[in-house]
């Protein structure tokens, strides 16, 4: 009996470890808060993610765009100083991807945005996230259930490249 409960406890520990490793909300090189930029400053999503309606990829802002305001705004904060160092040393900022699809998936942001989807439908309330966390499982079932509900194509070749 003890052994049985021990095994179950180990399994639970394993699940906890797996959840930890799933990287739902990884630490980022600069603690960029979407709360301030999206909610307080009301920047639209495509102010930074400019390719979201013209390309497969949403893209991220070049560091120059960040500096266009942060050359003078909030420069006393440590995170802004980190950002400035990246810019001056011309070092690339390696953000840890939160929404990452495997290579065999073709996902086009352009098509989804043009279909009228709001960013929050897949990415959640980004404006409320101090640290971005993944709100969808990104598993195939998650995608297909929405396609099924909205009458989007369910042909395998639509997404499997």
């Amino acid at each position, binding site marked *: 009996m003890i052994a049985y409960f021990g095994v*179950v406890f180990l399994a639970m520990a394993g699940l906890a470890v797996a959840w930890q490793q799933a990287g*739902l909300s990884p630490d980022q090189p600069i603690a960029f808060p979407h709360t301030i930029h999206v909610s307080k400053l009301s920047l639209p999503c495509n102010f930074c993610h400019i390719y979201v309606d013209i390309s497969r990829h949403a893209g991220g802002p070049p560091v120059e765009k960040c500096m266009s305001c942060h050359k*003078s705004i909030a420069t006393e904060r440590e995170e802004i100083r980190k950002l400035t160092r990246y810019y001056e040393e011309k070092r690339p900022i390696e953000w840890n991807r939160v929404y990452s699809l495997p290579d065999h998936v073709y996902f086009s942001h352009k098509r989804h945005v043009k279909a009228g989807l709001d960013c929050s439908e897949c990415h959640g*309330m980004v404006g*409320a996230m101090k640290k971005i966390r*993944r709100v969808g499982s990104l598993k195939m079932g998650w995608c297909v259930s929405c396609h099924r509900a909205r009458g989007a194509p369910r042909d395998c070749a639509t997404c499997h490249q």
Partner: protein
Amino acid sequence: MASWGNLQPLSPEFYSLLRHGLFLVLFLHLLFLGFLVGGSTVSLLLNFLGKEKRDPSYLRFSQELMRTVLISKSALFIFGLVPLLLVWFVYARVLFVASPLPWQFWAVILAVLTLGFVLLFLYRQARERTLELFPMTAAAGAAGLLAVILAFFLFSAGYGILFNPAKLPLLQKQIRFFLSWNAVVKFLLFLAFFFGMTGGLILLLCGRSAEGGEGMNAGYRGLVHRFGANLAILATFVLPVFLLLDLVTLPEIALSAEVFVFSAAVLLLSLAVCLTLFLSDGKGKGGPGGRVVFLFVLIFLAILLHDDAAVGNAYQDRIAFLTMQKAAVTAEAGKEAHREESASAEKTETDAGQVVFEKICAGCHRFDIRVVGPPLNERVPTYGGDVEKLKAFIRAPVKVNPGYPSMPKLGLPEEEIDAVARYLIAHVKEETSK
């Protein structure tokens, strides 16, 4: 202004109220329902076994059980139906949707549950009258039990969607989105708990009544004790499996360290129940019933807290968003009050521009001093009142003065550009004319 799909935004306090209210309601309702389901199942089972073995003690046990479980019609109503009406109200408030599907779903649950209660009550009454039952009556009881279990399954499905807010918009389209693996697992988890708690309550409440002296012998007590203990132990073995499956099937956003801690607590408590029952076996005096029931209630609390934590995690962004919105609204209200002191009819149009200015431009611009960009009292007059020229600049800013950083392209919609441009020109005229 992002919304919750088609849902009516609530305030964070209201959401908090709903969540805690749900917790309380579930605590009362499910404990009652658990004993009801568990007890009725065992009762029917005893009925069947009694007929097979021709042992009247089984039948007596069955009778005693039904008496204990279904205290009265009013109890059924208060603990059985009223809580669900409350839950229905919660859903109605949270899921204010265009589609009637969620309403219909809950109506079906209530109807089936009522039917089940009625049938079970009839069975209890028949059970009360005689030891030997007509097969029809037992069948009716079984039907009632099945109806209750079915209603509970649908309830689990409805409960399950709380953990996956991403599904809320999809619920309007097809009813099938109510079902999920998590719902099935939660159903089974709670069923396991029901049987366990029934076992504990059997140990506690049955086999010791003052009335019904004949037949209340050691053999009968032993039967009761055996049934209760075995049921409880079986449940505690099965419970962890479903708990693990629950952790596996919960959507990732619902998980957090708290959820795992509460799950571990459930595990430990189940182990405690097991140990209690094993260690007290054969002692016979007093019985472990009270301890077991207490532990089961703690288990139930832990399960509900686990679920509550999961719901909290799933909704944390949405609630944070509401909180921020509320803060913004209060700030707006404050400013609104301040503004109304110096309001005039013509200013309504520039108010929209003022909103834009305060939200977007004020981060870098003031009228009288340099912040990031130049003081607007200097810049705006250079446009000579030409709204279109100013709008063009705001739409696509170019570097004018190398002494200031470049103004970023803000991607504002046309109406906002128009409003803020007019506001700026009007405001600056006012300032300079003062």
